[in-house]
């Protein structure tokens, strides 16, 4: 082992290179942040800034926008397409696409209606059946890609049409089917919110977890001779997170409170984030999306990864369909048509997931769908004709992303595209 003259030979294992600027301590943290601003490496911060901008504008135009009641509605509405978008994140991660999520969600809500209401199956069984159909659909797409090399754009486009037909077919004799209002499922989709104490308790969890896990990690890193975050920093972060979440919860609790459906969505996002960032599967997904051949040469079962991505996406799409049926209390003929596809994909992209694979995060679905739904919700509060509404939606969407693009632009000029 060479012991080439390092400026700080006794330094930490990962801080040995003299070209690395010192970024420890509060001052270092600030400088590091400025570095990142300059090099455009800000993660989802710019999109959040865009979101805040949008909210501020709508709030000035109509103060109902930020009223807790409206926000609760917003959270309900985010959840259904949000879950579909989470599936889209999966397929985008591996550099593929699923254009049929709308149809799959529509089919699944139709199945729910037919099996549960018409055929009298137990609701749980109907749900499982609908999700199973989603799962199988995803597997078929994966099979077409893996065995026949059929581009997912085409196979899922075929799926889009075929499943829309199937949805209409099984709803054919009756048209849309109403789900019973008093059923727990519809309740879940329309009304069920957390008891206040539960929401306050849950709002503490992220902060505490961040602190505990962060501290444990810092200790392990220290023990291993790696640089680590200071306890003070961790504590500060935990306090900020907790206070922010508690405030939001308090605010929402002024109205009905936090919807369980939204909690489910956030739960899925967190789980997906863990799976993508902290498991071998997630690492493999990222690798396949970044460089398929390199992943294959590393011994990764690329076909299985594709299969998991498509299956997960279609299953989540089916789940989203079930929830939107619950939210509407109807298995509608229109379910899944219209903007569902585009919104689900756009949410993922706006949140920062790349269309070209290998870059993305579960949180992009959460963030993106909140941006999209905020625009939609804000515009319903203004008295506008549809034509103006379309034009404004287009412009506001652009603005939300321009902030992000501007931040990222410097990224390119700093040679890290």
């Amino acid at each position, binding site marked *: 082992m*060479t012991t*080439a003259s390092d400026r700080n030979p006794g330094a930490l294992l990962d801080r040995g290179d003299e070209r690395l600027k010192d970024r420890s301590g509060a001052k270092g943290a600030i400088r590091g942040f400025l570095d990142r601003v300059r090099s455009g490496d800000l993660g989802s911060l710019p999109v959040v800034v865009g979101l805040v901008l949008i909210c501020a504008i709508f709030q000035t135009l109509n103060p109902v926008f930020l009223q807790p009641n409206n926000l609760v509605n917003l959270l309900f509405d985010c959840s259904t397409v949000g879950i579909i978008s989470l599936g889209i994140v999966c397929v985008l991660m591996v550099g593929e696409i699923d254009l049929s999520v709308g149809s799959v969600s529509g089919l699944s809500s139709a199945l729910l209606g037919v099996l549960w209401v018409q055929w009298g199956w137990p609701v749980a069984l109907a749900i499982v059946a609908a999700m199973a159909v989603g799962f199988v659909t995803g597997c078929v797409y994966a099979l077409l890609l893996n065995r026949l090399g059929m581009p997912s754009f085409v196979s899922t486009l075929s799926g889009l049409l075929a499943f829309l037909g199937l949805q209409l077919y099984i709803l054919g004799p009756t048209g849309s089917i109403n789900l019973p209002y008093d059923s727990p499922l519809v309740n879940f989709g329309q009304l069920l919110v957390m008891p206040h104490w539960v929401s306050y308790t849950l709002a503490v969890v992220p902060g505490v977890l961040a602190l505990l896990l962060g501290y444990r990690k810092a200790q392990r890193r220290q023990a291993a001779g*790696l640089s680590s975050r200071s306890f003070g920093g961790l504590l500060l972060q935990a306090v900020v997170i907790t206070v922010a979440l508690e405030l939001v919860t308090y605010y929402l609790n002024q109205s009905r409170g936090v919807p369980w459906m939204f909690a489910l969505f956030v739960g899925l996002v967190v789980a997906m984030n863990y799976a993508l960032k902290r*498991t*071998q599967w997630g*690492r493999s997904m990222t*690798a396949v999306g970044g460089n398929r051949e*390199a*992943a294959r040469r590393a011994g990764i079962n690329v076909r299985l990864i594709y299969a998991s991505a498509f299956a997960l996406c279609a299953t989540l799409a089916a789940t989203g369909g079930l929830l939107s049926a619950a939210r509407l209390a109807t298995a509608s003929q229109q379910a899944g048509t219209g903007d569902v596809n585009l919104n689900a994909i756009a949410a993922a992209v706006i949140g920062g997931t790349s269309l070209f694979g290998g870059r993305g995060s579960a949180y992009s679905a959460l963030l993106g769908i909140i941006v999209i739904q905020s625009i939609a919700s804000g515009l319903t509060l203004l008295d506008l004709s549809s034509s103006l509404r379309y034009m404004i939606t287009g412009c506001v969407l652009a603005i939300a992303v321009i902030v992000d693009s501007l931040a990222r632009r410097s990224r390119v000029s700093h040679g890290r595209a």
Partner: protein
Amino acid sequence: MAIPDTPSTTSRQPVLSLRGISKNFGAVSALTDVDLDINAGEIVALVGDNGAGKSTLVKILAGAHMPSSGSITFDGQPVTLANPAAALKLGIATVFQDLALCENLDVVANIFLGRELHPLRLDEVSMEVRAWTLLKELSARIPSVREPVASLSGGQRQTVAIARSLLMEPRVILLDEPTAALGVAQTAEVLNLIERVRDRGLGVVMISHNMEDVRAVADRIVVLRLGRNNGIFLPGASNQELVTAITGADDNAVSRRGRRTAEKVQGEQP
């Protein structure tokens, strides 16, 4: 041009043995009827001109390409290396010429790709420590292992690819121009490493265009020319001999340049 009796070979049966391997890409025959044996505890250097088919051969051994025809035996058993996973399972580790790294992943993730510690709860701390240790061993000069590989220099990437191959406990290790982009110190470390690995009883295949390095570490030198076997040499072979086998002509660019340079030096110092 003698098939040598390598003294350091521990067992007489080759670990890996190729017979009559051919590979066509459309109208181009990249390999025609190539034979190769790799013994345990032996370094085989594979040399040849650009486009001679060396990397194609390595890719076939690594399971990245399927041969058009020919047979492969591993430990005396005929095997089909249908994909890289199959080769890795047999214990064949490979450093590819094109490195095959995922640019969007960081150094640690690339080194451990496919072999992560704790699949369900990645042990990032241990992986990072191990990564630093491996890189130090290779004299690497990488400021941070948490940057995506896209931001590394050519040599740094190559070091990462080599570090990858050291993670598993392979039977055979294939190195396709492992030192092409390395600095002088790093090259020296890699040559040391190759010798250490050989001494641990592994079979090593090394491809290189640097005849000096080849003669320094190889136990046997196999020459490919235009996709065909073109002789096997001992490390004692002269530069001239090797270059002739590689280029297929006595009178080649190297010899001409050698003569010219010599004349010039003479001309300058009359």
